[in-house]
């Protein structure tokens, strides 16, 4: 059935194409694979947060019956890392360890228990160094040596300073200027599936199946570290048990099993224990933030100055990008005429932080939403009206050169404010509502390594009635396979279950950069449209020739191409053209601004969200109960509303977990609680009802107008919780997570007449360099601006 917009698949709440596989236990995840003669791999990890390795003796381990191979860093000395600028990791470290859990050696054995016993039998001599466990400690002179030998001064990894427009002049124009300091504690992805990888080595060729979000980047890292050409390596994404950004780096265990397979000639598998998953991490950076904003008395922002300090953990990972992201998207929601951003990332002796859902932006989003809420109250303005007055407009450029196309902020706000009854909420102590908004990228506008090639490619093959679509995109549960099938089906007049899919296999599928930065629907979707339309044109041309009519007069839909069934048309087309294949690709527009660092932030389109949280907070105990969440999300156009809702609801869940209970904390150099019992992930009984509103703005460049849905909706939930706690109790919790003990402490301070707040007292002195001054672009998108990159 075709709807009033002419779509028969797009916009329909259809089941996922892999639904049956997932509900019957037939989807094969990496750890489900157990080919004959598989060896099991365990990794010996550092017990010290910071130490030089003096010696590694593996002889006892090698003597244990069943042990087939033992390797150390000397077998894999080449460094790698997700970003070209920070190639600072080794699969196994033989010189220096930098956090408890840093991999040192790996064993392949016939049984997992034997491999574990062999790890225990490896004797490592350490020279223990003073660990650096906080931002403050990292900024100070290290007592022993620095964690990494690049960056600086001290344990600073990266410093950035940018100024767009004249910020001092902006503050001079303001009637009111306010500063606030916020802290967002780190947390982790906690996918239900532990990372797992299995490798074979046959005929000089490595094949790796892995639970990864980025088959392509794993492919590149393997080639580099194993010192093999890429055409000797095949990476296949196994059925995926959850990522959220946690499987977006190449990992030690992936490289190690490949190397062990090469040495033993047998399949080698490594599945991380849950504890090791906490050490693999790459999760949310702890970020300390300072923000100053100037406003006129009628509530217009004149300037903003934002500072961040990120606790990066021991390695670079995505950290340089994460640092820029803490300053990038403030301007995409609010029209800030002058903006200064100073960012800093430090190294500490903890598992490396990286991209978790929202990558680098939930922390500043929490800060600026609460900060603006406070400013509204300073001015006696309604926070919703105040924020709204400053919203960006569609089809504009921000002061930091980000291009805003579609923007459904107003609609999002209207939905959640009206439906939640925010304006007429019950005002009584202990009950509160909080409101916040946000925005996120629909895919990063630049690739992780600099290149001008497409970011996503799709091939379609039609033969004798069958359609197969090939794409490197990795379905991590979000439904990217279903989106591909829906698009190809729509264009060819079929249904999604008519489309066979081959995805995430570096041998058989064309490139897609991976499931990160919310890029797949936008980029693979556009590539799929192009490929499918080319295929459709061939089918239509063949059908028209046989009907003796115009191609334009050939109707496509409901399994028919003109007068023919799809099968008949495909035979006519194959007869006419030979092998029926088509290809499409997507390259994002070159819109990054003319300054260094402008590669982080640009996206072909931004999603928008708004959220209201209703909660009860107990003044005496600090216990918070979330009653309900209303969330509206501008997804551009919902290709499948069921999947969009799923992403939005999952984002709300993860946002609530972060807001209230999830934290990755350390004690005496160790992760305090690397277990699913003590790292608190909300249960069924902790999750409130959620009301979701899908807002459609039909983005001009999105596939059928679609934008992202997987990350943006997490962002406003966190500040909305804290704002609701203020609404309920009159205390500001300027630190995430909002735990009962923090609320109780803030209530105590309030009762004593001290500032009614819990949060960081100050922002440290950081030796930021002088700002790079950047001239803002013309605001109107219709006025051409010279993009530099």
């Amino acid at each position, binding site marked *: 059935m075709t709807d009033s917009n002419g779509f028969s698949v797009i916009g329909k709440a259809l089941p996922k194409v892999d639904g049956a596989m997932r509900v019957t236990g037939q989807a094969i995840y990496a750890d489900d694979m157990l080919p004959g003669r598989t060896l099991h791999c365990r990794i010996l990890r550092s017990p010290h947060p910071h130490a030089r390795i003096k010696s590694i003796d593996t002889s006892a381990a090698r003597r244990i019956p069943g042990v087939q191979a033992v390797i150390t860093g000397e077998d894999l000395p080449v460094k790698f890392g997700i970003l070209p600028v920070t190639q600072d990791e080794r699969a196994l470290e033989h010189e220096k360890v930098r956090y408890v859990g840093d991999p040192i050696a790996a064993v392949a054995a016939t049984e997992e228990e034997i491999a574990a016993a062999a790890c225990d039998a490896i004797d490592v001599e350490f020279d223990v160094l003073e660990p650096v466990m906080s931002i403050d400690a990292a900024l100070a002179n290290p007592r022993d040596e620095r964690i990494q030998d690049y960056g600086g001064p001290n344990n600073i990894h990266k410093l950035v300073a940018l100024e767009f427009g004249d910020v001092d002049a902006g503050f001079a124009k303001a009637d009111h200027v306010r500063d606030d300091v916020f802290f967002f504690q780190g947390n982790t992805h906690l996918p239900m599936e532990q990372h797992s990888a299995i490798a074979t080595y046959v005929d000089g060729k490595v094949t790796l199946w892995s639970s990864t979000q980025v088959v392509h980047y794993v492919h590149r890292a393997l080639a580099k570290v194993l010192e093999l050409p890429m055409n000797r390596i095949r990476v296949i994404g196994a059925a995926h048990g959850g990522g959220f950004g946690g499987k977006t780096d190449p990992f030690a265990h992936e490289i190690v099993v490949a190397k062990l397979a090469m040495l033993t000639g047998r399949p080698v598998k490594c599945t991380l224990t849950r504890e090791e998953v906490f050490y693999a991490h790459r999760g949310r950076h702890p970020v300390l933030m300072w923000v100053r904003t100037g406003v006129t008395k009628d509530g217009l922002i004149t300037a903003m100055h934002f500072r961040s300090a990120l606790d990066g953990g021991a390695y670079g990972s995505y950290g340089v990008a994460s640092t820029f992201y803490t300053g990038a998207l403030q301007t995409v929601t609010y029209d800030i005429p002058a903006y200064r951003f100073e960012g800093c990332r430090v190294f500490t002796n903890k598992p490396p932080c990286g991209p978790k859902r929202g990558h680098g932006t939930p922390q500043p989003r929490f800060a600026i939403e609460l900060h603006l809420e406070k400013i509204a109250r300073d001015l006696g303005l309604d926070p919703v009206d105040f924020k709204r007055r400053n919203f960006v407009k569609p089809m504009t450029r921000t002061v930091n050169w980000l291009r805003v196309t579609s923007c459904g902020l107003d609609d999002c706000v209207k939905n959640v404010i009206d439906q939640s009854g925010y304006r007429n909420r019950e005002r009584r102590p202990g009950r509160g509502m909080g409101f916040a908004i946000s925005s996120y990228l629909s895919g990063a506008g630049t690739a992780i390594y600099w290149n001008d090639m497409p970011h996503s490619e799709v091939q379609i093959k039609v033969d004798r009635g069958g359609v197969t679509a090939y794409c490197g995109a990795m379905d991590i549960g979000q439904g990217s396979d279903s989106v591909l099938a829906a698009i190809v089906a729509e264009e060819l007049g079929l249904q999604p279950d008519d489309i066979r899919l081959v995805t995430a296999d570096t041998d058989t599928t064309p490139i897609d950069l991976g499931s990160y930065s919310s890029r797949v629907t936008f980029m693979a979707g556009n590539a799929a449209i192009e490929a499918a339309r080319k295929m459709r044109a061939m089918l239509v041309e063949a059908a028209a020739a046989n009907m003796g009519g115009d191609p334009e007069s050939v109707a496509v839909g409901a399994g028919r191409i003109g007068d023919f069934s799809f099968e008949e048309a495909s035979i006519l087309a194959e007869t006419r053209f030979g092998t029926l294949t088509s290809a499409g690709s997507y390259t994002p527009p070159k819109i990054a601004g003319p300054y260094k660092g402008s590669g982080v932030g640009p996206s072909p389109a931004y999603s928008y969200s708004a959220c209201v949280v209703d909660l009860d907070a107990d003044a005496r105990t600090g216990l918070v109960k979330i009653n309900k969440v209303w969330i509206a999300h501008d997804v551009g156009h919902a290709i499948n509303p069921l999947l969009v809702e799923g992403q939005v609801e999952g984002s709300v869940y993860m946002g609530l977990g972060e807001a209230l209970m999830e934290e990755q904390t350390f004690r005496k150099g*160790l992760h305090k609680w690397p*277990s699913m*019992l*003590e790292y*608190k992930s909300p*249960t069924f009984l902790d999750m409130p009802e959620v009301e979701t509103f899908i807002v459609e703005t039909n983005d001009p460049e999105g596939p059928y107008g679609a934008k992202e849905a997987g990350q943006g909706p997490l962002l406003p939930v966190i500040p909305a919780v804290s704002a609701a706690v203020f609404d309920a109790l009159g205390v500001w919790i300027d630190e995430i997570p909002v735990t009962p*003990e923090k609320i109780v402490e803030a209530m105590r301070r309030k009762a004593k007449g001290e500032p009614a707040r819990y949060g960081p007292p100050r922002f440290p002195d950081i030796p930021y360099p002088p700002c790079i001054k950047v001239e803002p672009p013309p605001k109107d998108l219709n006025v051409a601006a010279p993009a530099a990159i």
Partner: protein
Amino acid sequence: MASELGPRAMFVAGGTDLFPKLKRRQFEVDALIGLDFLGDRVRRGDDDTVVDAGVTLAAASTAEALRAEFPGYAEAAGLVSSPPLRNAGTIGGNLCVDTRCNYYDMTYEWRKAAGFCMKKDGDICLVAPSSSRCWALSSSDTAPMAIALGALVTLAGPNDERELPVAALYRDDGIDYLAKQPHEVVTALRVPSAGGTRSAYVKLRRRGSIDFPIAGAAVAMRMDGDTVASCRIVLSAVASYPLEAPAAAAFMVGKRVDEETVRSAAEMAAKPAKPLDNADLSHFWRKRMVRVVVEQALARAGDQQPRFDG
């Protein structure tokens, strides 16, 4: 059998406490002795109700005999961990559940990195390094309630059987927390009927499920008209054993269960609780919360309409 196999043998009923600890190498055994022979019935007699030690926590939480007469006990059983664990875990197991500490309930690798503690493989307490004892926490939800109800536990050894008050099963030590002999098995819990007993259990934890208690209060009381005739208050997860608050309970006797009485009693009950920093959330906050859970438990018990009066 246990006495023959010695200390390297352990009993296993539901396994929900034992198996994770074996995997984390907190326990090391050569042999496990299955307790499938334990009964799994709840029997209501004229003077008492006997709960076999093999009754699962799920069964105890739904058993009509318990829900009607000892609702606090059924409630406590139903608040242990999560539904699938309650289907395996038994009431005997929950009475004997190992004391917990977030320096101890960690994997072998983690404990090795942290430095082993005296409860396993080491010789100091990582929570209180100057202390000569172990401060691991009693983490049973049902034991405090059983004590409040004046229940008795049956221990069977190779040659004999003995019965002792549940309170006497525990010692104030994180390591040697049980007063039973290693070869003795808890076979039953006997709860004496005391007409019109009201009981309530309030458990504090971060999430609605899965978590162990980080504080809790069990209250059992009988009324004489509008005033309290007898009362027992027992706290969970604030000491190495279920911590009874006799002064607070005595204070309740002869008084109405009104807001002010409850508040004063709760304050008295909270005084001896000295949580240390070895469970979720801060010990300062947990200390403050003891008063709250006691208040809630007293108020809930006070409001209860007993379904069996004598």
